[in-house]
């Protein structure tokens, strides 16, 4: 039997892709499908941990659950604040690191260290930095005479949220900076020179050359950071445990508490499914924009 080259190529293609598909199926598809199945049951201390089919009851309960909506709001505040701050600061750092100066290589390496450190360690450190009695932040503010008495950073709702945002920005900005730096390095210097001969100021070049050509990297960084920040758990769990009074409780922490503390498995599974759908929607949206953008910059369809 003879096969055309095209057929043979297609067969080889499938053979190459199947292992990856299997891994994805076991690691992602199965847990999500299983979670969805679980979310159709009530399985908690009330049912003596026996699964009892309850249809979409868990989802109905979620709509009524004020604590759930509060955690969604907290997660959004945390995600958007860190994303915006990290992009702005990361862009600034990337622009500086893209300049030629003595010791640039060393500085680039140092810049990535916060991102490489274990989160639990960073969280513990930042918790001490914001400690109301022994913390460095209060000490500095007191010495500068900006405040009279120490602020209980992690003990009050707004300061606690601010503290975890600062800690996360400190940890992750360098990651964004390195990603943007890679993009900056791919922009030919000729373009800036041509633009300056055309009469552009540095700010105009940044707006008209750098930003549009860096858009793919900005979008990818945003996507990464959105997904990570939306699922934030370790940093906040260690620093505040979601407190005070749920002020820093994010969706992940709520899910963790629901399942591990209240042993409410069915409801926890429903929370997972909804969070998953939200995330996928945002990622799909970003991916769509990314492909649009690629068409716009290179003209390739």
């Amino acid at each position: 039997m003879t096969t055309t080259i095209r057929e043979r190529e297609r067969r080889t293609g499938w053979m190459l892709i199947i292992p990856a598909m299997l891994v994805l199926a076991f690691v992602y598809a199965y847990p999500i499908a299983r979670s969805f199945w679980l979310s159709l049951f009530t399985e908690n201390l009330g049912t003596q941990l026996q699964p009892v089919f309850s249809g979409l009851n868990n989802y109905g309960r979620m709509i009524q659950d004020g604590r759930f909506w509060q955690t969604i709001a907290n997660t959004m505040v945390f995600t958007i604040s860190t994303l915006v701050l990290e992009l702005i600061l990361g862009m600034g750092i990337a622009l500086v690191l893209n300049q030629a100066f003595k010791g640039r290589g060393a500085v680039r390496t140092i810049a990535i260290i916060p991102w490489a450190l274990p989160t639990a360690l960073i969280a513990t450190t930042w918790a001490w930095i914001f400690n109301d009695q022994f913390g460095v932040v209060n000490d500095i503010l007191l010495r500068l005479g900006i405040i009279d008495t120490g602020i209980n950073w992690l003990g009050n709702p707004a300061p606690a949220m601010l503290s975890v945002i600062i800690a996360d920005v400190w940890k992750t900005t360098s990651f964004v900076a390195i990603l943007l730096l890679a993009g900056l390095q791919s922009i030919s210097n000729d373009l800036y020179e041509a633009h300056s001969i055309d009469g552009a100021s540095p700010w105009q070049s940044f707006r008209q050359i750098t930003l549009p050509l860096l858009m793919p990297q900005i979008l990818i960084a945003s996507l990464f950071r959105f997904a990570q920040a939306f699922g934030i758990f370790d940093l906040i769990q260690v620093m505040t445990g979601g407190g005070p009074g749920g002020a820093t409780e994010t969706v992940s922490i709520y899910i963790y508490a629901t399942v591990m503390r209240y042993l409410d498995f069915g409801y926890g599974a429903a929370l997972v499914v909804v969070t998953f759908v939200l995330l996928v929607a945002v990622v799909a949206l970003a991916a769509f924009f990314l492909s649009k953008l690629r068409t716009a910059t290179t003209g390739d369809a």
Partner: protein
Amino acid sequence: MAKLELSHLNKTYSPKIIPVKDVSLDVDDGEFLTLLGPSGCGKSTILRLIAGLEQPTRGEIRIDGKNVTQHSPGDRNIAMVFQSYALYPHMTVYDNMASGLKLKRVSSEEIRRRIEQVSLFLGLGNLMQRKPGQLSGGQRQRVALGRALVRQPDVFLLDEPLSNLDALLREQVRAELKQIFESQNTPVVYVTHDQTEAMTLSTKVAVLSNGDLQQLDPPRRIYTHPANRFVAGFVGSPQMNLLDLKCEGKFAILGNYKIPLPGRMTPPPEITLGVRPEHVRLAEPSDTHTLQGKVILKENLGMSDLLSVKVKGAENQTLRALLPSDRPWSAEEVTLALPPDLIHWFDVETGDRLTSENLQPVY
């Protein structure tokens, strides 16, 4: 409209890297000056100094009599075509061409008018909405040129604009460039390492080597009266024969051929003879001074043959001769003649041209 003057330009990156040593030259309206020289001799650096992308260590740049040395690139009203074209990849052809005019706050009415005119001229009409990524190399080159032309600058700068095109296209675009810039009454500075481009396009050629100006003359004169050994060897293809010869009395000795030195010269112990392969010819019976040699290599160039000849009586000297393919010769022994008026003499030590003509350069 404008005149470009460079006086005593020097660019020193470090004590060891001085790509521009001391360059002074003028380019008038409608003049097409080519900076010609081997790779790394400082051509691009001079262009970047004129554009303001680099600051000179010493010296002055004047445009239209005004000292612009301290002006930023955008304030010099210069247009530059880059070797890489430097088209903005995220903008359409139209926006690429409009960019500089928008920055200068030209009315959109006027922008449209100028772009229409230039794109008609360059045949870019149907490409206006494409992105550079969708264009061929030749089209990109044309857009880069168009972007410079719509600016209507005081000075045009072009850095090896043809080097990324294939040979056939290069020849075609070269001819177009000549037409385009003949119609622009503006100084043009053109950088190339390709002598054919320099010869065909320029009204004036500046030959550079190691950051120093070697010769500044019209292209014809660069060919007929090279100012020194470097220019003689660099300009012309195949390369000029350059032979170091011993002198005896008023003659230079090549094998058993005594070549009379030019008139008023006090004979040095040694001298460099230069003669272009295309000027070496087969001897006629009427020739009194001839030299014999053995052909060691023949390269067929189509229209003619390039022979490498070992000169009899001077076995370490090889002379190359370009002979028409249809003339018969014997490989064992050819007899050649050197026309005396087409021989160049250079100082062995300094490389400077020795014939008196060179003392009064003619522009």
